């Protein structure tokens, strides 16, 4: 009886380990957080590193779902992106070597 219980316990443990190894890791990735982060970073990159015009950049950055809006401060080289008021992100141009950083 003891042996059977031990074997059963061992089998359950091995099954749990196998399951753990094949399990996908999930992240606390909120879709809107990713959308505004992408819009801020990529718009900043497009305008200030690749030096493309705003119309090109608007299309280049467009993602699905296309919910992010952005504002470009050409003087400060800062891009603010937002979605549904409460989701925001900012990227700024650092310098000619290091491009844009998502804050």
């Amino acid at each position: 009886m003891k042996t059977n219980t031990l074997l059963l316990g061992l089998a359950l443990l091995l099954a749990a380990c196998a399951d753990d190894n094949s399990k996908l890791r999930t992240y606390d990735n909120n879709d809107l957080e990713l959308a505004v982060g992408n819009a801020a970073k990529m718009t900043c990159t497009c305008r200030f590193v690749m030096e493309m015009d705003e119309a090109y950049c608007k299309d280049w950055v467009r993602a699905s779902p296309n919910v992010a809006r952005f504002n470009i401060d050409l003087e400060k080289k800062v891009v603010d992106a937002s979605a549904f008021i409460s989701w925001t992100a900012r990227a700024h141009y650092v310098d000619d070597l290091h491009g844009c950083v998502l804050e």
Partner: protein
Amino acid sequence: MNRIVIGTIVLLASLAQAQQCRARASWPTEKWPEALVNATAKAAEIKALEDYAFTIVGKPEERKGYRTNGLVVVKNGAIVYEKYARGWDENKRHLSWSVAKSVSSTLVGVAVNQGLMTLDESLCKQLPEYQSDPVVCGITVKNIITFGSGLQWQEEYEDAGYQVSSVLAMLLGSGHKDQIKHVLTHRKLHEPGTQFVYSTGDAHVVGTLAKRALTAKHGANAFWTQLFEPIGMKRVVFDEDPAGNPLGGSYVYATPRDFAKLGYLMLNDGCWNDQRLLPVGWVQQATAVSDTFRANRGDCSNATPAGEYKLPCEDTPNGYMWWLNRPPAAGVDKPWKDAPDDTYAALGHWGQRIIVIPSEDLVIMRTGDDREGSIPVNDLVKFVLPVVKP
């Protein structure tokens, strides 16, 4: 005795030969020489290439087809073909996406050449803040430069569920402020060097290792002073995260002409203008199928571990973050059937490509915005070769 002396002389002579750099009439550090193909004689071949690579399909907003922004072809050390489209020109820097991985690997080569790091050292040598972490310290530079860190990683992009993407979490989500910490706090899933798992996280770490090694000796701008400027890549941008880690898996920008110079450095065995920037044998190792890649190709049923980037047996082999035209397993064809066997490439999302073909003395650099699926290397080579053939 005589045999030992002669043997030593032969050995020394062959070593000296190996260390010698290939002689070139000139080097394109300041500017690429131009020897454009005869547009009249090659009209049909050029038309076929441009119909393939530059034809717009559907409305621009539909983002269909292969949307080439720039194409530069270098043959025998000179630009023989060049074309831009969609608002791009030779002076505009383009995002390279995962071509950055090959740039990062090359920067490690520069550091190794200067004796600032070795492939066999632990990650903890350059990242002492992880000294107490046995998982991180158990990984070598060679493990990680061959995508074999063994850390769990799910390389998913915009087409997959955002909640399972390690890379989106790193670049844009909870991990974006310190992206190296995000990578290195993933759990160990395999023994280092035993499973090839394509990972932008591994490449970010490779870039950071190069930065730590090179900046310790040469200062903050070491990437530029030790690699980009010596080969005339004048306007390279290399993004960093808020913690100052270079984003070596994704975010390097340069003009197509400058990216072609990286390919030309590799084509010339890591030499530039008689100066050796990469160690003797580095290019050969970087463009040979890595031990890590081979390790999980023996049993093809084991090549797609659950929850990881899917790499079937038919997929393209990799060296030190360069993709190779080699059969990935016994009995399987090489991936780019119309390209010479010695072709290798740096490949990035949305169709960024630096393709090097040593036997043709050829570098092809292509930038693009392919949202439906990236332009195949095989087809690009297939259309370029007739244009440049005498």
